């Protein structure tokens, strides 16, 4: 029961390990592209030089200068690629540290060991940091990562750029987000993302709102026509805006003018961005918390007499409220918990029934009897019985 099934638990760590690998991949791709381009132009320049030199158009001195130029160009590119290289080593380092973190986990064999508790605490911290980053609590996230020394296990830097884009959208500016779309064009295409279209439509809507009809039409010509194959219906809707003022009550133009469309854009950007970087659409905190609360939730958690202060769901103000709408867990096997000691009752610690029907564990009752001259006081009803009045209960 207390053994860990590593493969199963690792299935939750897919994003954790995948995120830095994908970043490393894309960063390598960037530098590779630059280098390939440079090599191509280099070959061309060198063959140009030798051609000219054979024809006598360049004397050796000039050849020397031309070659010097090439060296200079290569050095410039090298400086330019410095950041990409730094990124590459950051992510390869991160991947390494994360693999090691998971490796440490596979070395733990039982759920009740101190090592597991320590590992789980680290996991909780990185899950919390992820949730805070998504919520925009960057400062707290950084503080926690630093104080726990887990910077390599979290993705703080990946949220810096997306935060900028989101802030721009909040200011109702599409420029940053469109720039982001351009940078990630091919990946977005693979996702079949319509984010760019939505952004273009929004810019058009803003022009229509300001009644700048001429500009709006030329904007549509330039940026919307390329989507006609897939989005003709939407395009004809937005073109309709030119005929309707922003105050219109008419459907669907009212909806298009609505400012809440900006929030939809933020949501769309977020989900695209998460998918692109292999993040889960929902924070892992919500996922695991939801699963945990469901697994722990019993009908008794909401009955004041049956509350257990150690049970997370029993707190009606915090987790209990979060769990309120979650499904209950299913049980086909009995597990009886002693109300006095919190221990599980089984063949080694038999359940004993008092004459009033209340059941407690043998261990707890013998301890109570030994301190009270063989008398038992039922903690729930206050009734007093003799130890000899107890009856063994058999749960099969």
């Amino acid at each position, binding site marked *: 029961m207390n053994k860990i099934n590593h493969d199963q638990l690792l299935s939750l760590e897919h994003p954790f390990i995948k995120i830095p690998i994908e970043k490393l991949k894309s960063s390598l791709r960037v530098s590779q592209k630059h280098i390939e381009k440079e090599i191509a132009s280099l070959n061309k320049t060198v063959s140009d030089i030798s051609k000219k030199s054979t024809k006598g158009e360049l004397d050796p001195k000039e050849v020397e200068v031309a070659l010097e130029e090439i060296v200079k160009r290569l050095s410039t590119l090298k400086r330019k690629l410095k950041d990409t290289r730094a990124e*590459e080593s950051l992510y390869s380092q991160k991947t390494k540290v994360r693999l090691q973190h998971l490796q440490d986990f596979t070395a733990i064999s039982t759920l009740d060991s101190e090592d597991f508790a320590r590992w789980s605490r680290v996991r909780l911290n990185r899950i919390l940091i992820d949730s805070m980053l998504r919520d925009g609590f960057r400062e707290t996230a950084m503080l926690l990562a630093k*104080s726990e020394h887990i910077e390599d296990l979290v993705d703080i830097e990946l949220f810096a750029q997306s935060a900028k884009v989101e802030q721009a959208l909040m200011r109702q500016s599409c420029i940053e987000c469109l720039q982001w779309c351009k940078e990630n064009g091919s990946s977005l295409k693979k996702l079949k993302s319509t984010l760019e279209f939505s952004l273009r439509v929004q810019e058009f809507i803003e022009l229509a709102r300001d009644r700048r009809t001429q500009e709006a039409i030329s904007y549509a010509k330039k940026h919307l026509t390329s989507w006609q194959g897939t989005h003709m219906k939407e395009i004809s809707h937005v073109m309709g805006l030119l005929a309707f003022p922003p105050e219109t009550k008419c459907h669907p133009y009212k909806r298009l003018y609505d400012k809440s469309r900006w929030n939809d854009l933020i949501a769309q950007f977020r989900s695209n961005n998460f998918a692109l970087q292999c993040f889960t659409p929902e924070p892992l905190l919500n996922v695991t918390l939801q699963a945990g609360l469901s697994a722990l939730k*019993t009908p008794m958690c909401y009955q004041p007499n049956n509350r257990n202060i150690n049970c997370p769901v029993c707190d009606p103000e915090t987790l209990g409220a979060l769990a309120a709408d979650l499904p209950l867990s299913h049980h086909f096997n009995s597990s009886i918990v002693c109300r006095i000691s919190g221990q599980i009752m089984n063949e080694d610690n038999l359940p004993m029934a008092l004459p009033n029907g209340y059941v407690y564990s043998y261990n707890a009752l013998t301890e109570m009897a030994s301190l009270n001259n063989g008398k038992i006081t039922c903690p729930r009803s206050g009734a007093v019985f003799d130890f000899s009045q107890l009856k063994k209960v058999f749960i099969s």
Partner: protein
Amino acid sequence: MESFIKDYDKILKRQRNLETDDPLDRLIAVVNEAKEKIRADPSSVKTSLATLDSSLSAVSNGISEEQKELQSALSKYSKTIDKKFTGDMMGAINPHAFDNKEKMLRNTIAMHFIRQGNFEIGDTFAKASRCSEAGLEVSDSMRNQFMEMFDIVAALKENNLEPALEWATRHRSGLEKRSSTLEFKLHRQRYLQLLEAQQLLEAIAYARKNFGSSGSRHTQEILRLMCCSIYMHRIESSPYADLITSNTNSDIQHMFTRDFCSLIGLSCDSPLYVSVTVGTQAMPTMIKMASIIKAKKTEWSQQSELPPVEINLTDDTKFHSIFACPVSKEQASEENPPMMMVCGHVVCKESLQKLCRGSSSYRFKCPYCPSELVASQAKNVYF
């Protein structure tokens, strides 16, 4: 996992190579070489340029080869990761379950930090969330209580029992109500500390002063403690070696934390930690169930129960008694309570009714033992 690390190390080596032996440096070297040659001997322009051309293509072929290899190794690696870490988490949960409950979630998180003694982070988080819509309420009194707790634990870590003893004496009645042995355990620890410091007389005086009040409850243990003083110089090799094992200190810290929290009406572990840890254990089962149900195309997320599969909890996370009737396999409820028959076996009321064919005087055999029973003698039990 080990094979993953090994495979990755190979990739890492290649990536590191790119850093130490930058392909651009190699290109620069080749061009520089040709340049130097021409400078040294201007008449060799033609041959030098020809060499440059051929060595350039050799070097650049090498470079693109290396990069391609690294890229494809990485892609392959990424795919094996996909294969090893599978499971559609999102299918198993309801993404809107916590909608409009951000405030509660944030409260829980803030509380969690305070319970971990991470006051600085708790405060930063609370400040940040107060700026956003959902305000936070972690009462100052709660915060101060935990401050006190962590101060005392810090002292305990340094083997200073005074603050803990002072606290335990102050809360004696509350602790006794919970039949806690904290105060005695602390006195016991202090006594052993004195013995280990070879201060026999002080130890005995301390025992006389402090063990008296708990004499009736811990007679046996006090006897052992007093006896162990005759081995004062070598307790570790005496029959009393178990009294001074190295983890007594961490046991006392844990006991203190538990009693402290219980006295202020809180669980001893952070509820957020417990829930998330249970969640990670429950998740694989839920993922599997969700994928089966998805394959069968039945909907369950709207129902009030999880799919009919048992999620195993570890013993320390079972907080409530669950009674599932061994006959009907149904969970007991208020309408269908567990009934104990004369032989001590328990079934649910509905099952009992079936066994006795609806008559309270009908004699039937217990399904689990040879006893003959009548339903009227069965009685309600409360777990």
